[in-house]
């Protein structure tokens, strides 16, 4: 397929003397998609990301980047890591430099770009993450939210086609989660494919079109997010809760049968229209009976 970005085929990974962390995982990511990866702790989300980024080498199975098989050669690994960026869960895992500017320069410098290009990329990615004027600040005196933004800017500076974010909403306050959501929206609109692992189902429901559910190293569901959250069996197996809006919609559908024909809202902003439509129709029905 022309728009295919990354494809995993029958990927298995096992840590030393442990049960397999990934069992026969096959999945395709298209260009421009926004996807959430759901699953309880230990389901294999982080391992999955590390395999996609070429940090862990699967014992069996193949990875294709833009239709090309990745052989594991140095060249291929480099291309994979440049095209598929990975933002780690803990910003402190990622940050190594003494100033934000040099921190962001680490990736582009490793790509062997010239000074001018590196400078340009630093400015651009800091601006994208609202970090203008932070070049000379020391990362260890930044707040958690700022550190998270630095760690995303790190990856943006490498200009990947696809970014994997490992639980980006964990340990962020609500304001920073909202900011992150807006940022991810912008990045996706700029054409970057986003794959986000999260426990925050409400965030996931608003953000993604497609959801992948991992359980004990296996993909047990992969599809449109609304369908995934209707699948009671999968939710139970993966230990997932339904998003609040999903629960509310179910209650409304119970009370107002016509609601079943209306598309469920996935964001609070859409909920107003949804509720107005339903209640208006409901009011109309009452008017008819009078």
């Amino acid at each position: 397929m022309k728009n295919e970005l990354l494809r995993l085929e029958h990927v298995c990974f096992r840590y030393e003397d442990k049960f397999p962390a990934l069992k026969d995982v096959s999945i395709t990511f298209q260009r421009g998609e926004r996807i959430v990866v759901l699953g309880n702790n230990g389901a294999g989300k982080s391992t999955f990301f590390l395999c996609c980024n070429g940090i862990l080498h699967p014992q069996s199975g193949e990875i294709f980047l833009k239709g090309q098989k990745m052989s594991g050669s140095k060249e291929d690994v480099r291309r994979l890591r440049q095209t598929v960026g990975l933002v780690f869960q803990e910003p402190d895992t990622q940050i190594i430099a003494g100033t934000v500017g040099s921190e962001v320069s680490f990736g582009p410098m490793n790509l062997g770009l010239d000074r001018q290009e590196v400078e340009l990329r630093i400015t651009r990615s800091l601006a994208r993450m609202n970090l203008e004027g932070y070049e000379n600040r020391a990362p260890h005196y930044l707040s958690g939210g700022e550190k998270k933004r630095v760690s995303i800017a790190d990856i943006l500076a490498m200009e990947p086609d696809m970014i994997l974010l490992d639980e980006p909403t964990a340990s962020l306050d609500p304001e920073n989660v909202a900011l992150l959501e807006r940022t991810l929206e912008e990045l996706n609109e700029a054409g970057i494919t986003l794959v986000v692992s999260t426990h925050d189902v409400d965030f996931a429901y608003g953000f993604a079109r497609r959801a992948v559910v991992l359980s004990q190293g296996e993909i047990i569901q992969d599809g449109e997010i609304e369908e995934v959250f209707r699948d009671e069996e999968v939710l139970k197996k993966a230990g997932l809760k339904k998003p609040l809006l999903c629960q509310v919609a179910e209650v409304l559908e119970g009370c107002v049968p016509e609601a079943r024909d209306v598309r469920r809202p996935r964001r609070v902003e859409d909920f107003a229209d949804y509720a107005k439509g339903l209640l208006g129709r409901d009011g109309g029905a009452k008017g008819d009976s009078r």
Partner: protein
Amino acid sequence: MVTGILTMVVVWCLFYGRLPAAVLLLLGGGLGAALSLLGRHGSGQFLTIDILAQTSRLNRVSPLLKFWTALILMALCVSASSSFVGLFLTVFMLILIVCGGGLALHDYIHLLALPLSFLLLGGLALLFEVTVQRTGVLGIPVFGFWLCVSQAAQTRAMLVMARALGSLSCLYMLSLTTPMSDLIGVLRRIHCPELLIDLMYLIYRYIFILLSMYHAMRDAAASRLGFGDYRTSLRTTGNLYFSLLFRSYRQANRNFDAMESRCFDSGIRFLEDAGKIRGSHVLAAGALILLTLGLSIFFW
């Protein structure tokens, strides 16, 4: 406080017999009181110097320029044969760091107090000689012997202390106005071995990671009464350091993964913003060096 009293004693011994007693009392007492009052403890944090360097107004002056200026001034200060050069640099750097860099005076004095107390103790050792008979300008009888201060010893101690104080001030000028990463950048530019530079970057970063890990674990242990009595404190501290070691290994692995995921292969490379060397800064540094040189020749 200790430094204040020490200063008083040392100043008394240094100038005894050279200045009238009233002036001596005023000078010694004044300096001692100023030190103990102004040097009152601010935050007293372990990482103070790092924070001060980050916030100094002089931290955008080219680190390379500061590095060489500090080095040359230190060389001049140590080779000068008059204590005026050292005293001049001490006063000049104090004004530069406090007025130019925007550092609070009491913070600076507080930072100066610790090395100063060592310096003064050394000064005392240089001043006094143990003799059988009383000689020199000042003598204190101790168990049949005399602790004496001669004029030659006064001059010598004065010179040594002034040199040390002056060089210390130059070093403080560098370290209190230059963030660590800039300093490492300078070392790279003067061709320190790559391996050392990489290690320095990582160690600097790790100080903060390990320290915050340690603080979190120590607080968690304290909240479970892990430091209740001496025996438990010992055991808790042992356990704490063990798990710190274990966790730092794991953290190192994860950090390495994160570096690899950004295409790290060998050698840590950052884009160093060297800080443009400005003409006016070079002129100022040049003028300062010439002035110091002039002083050391004049007072040869």
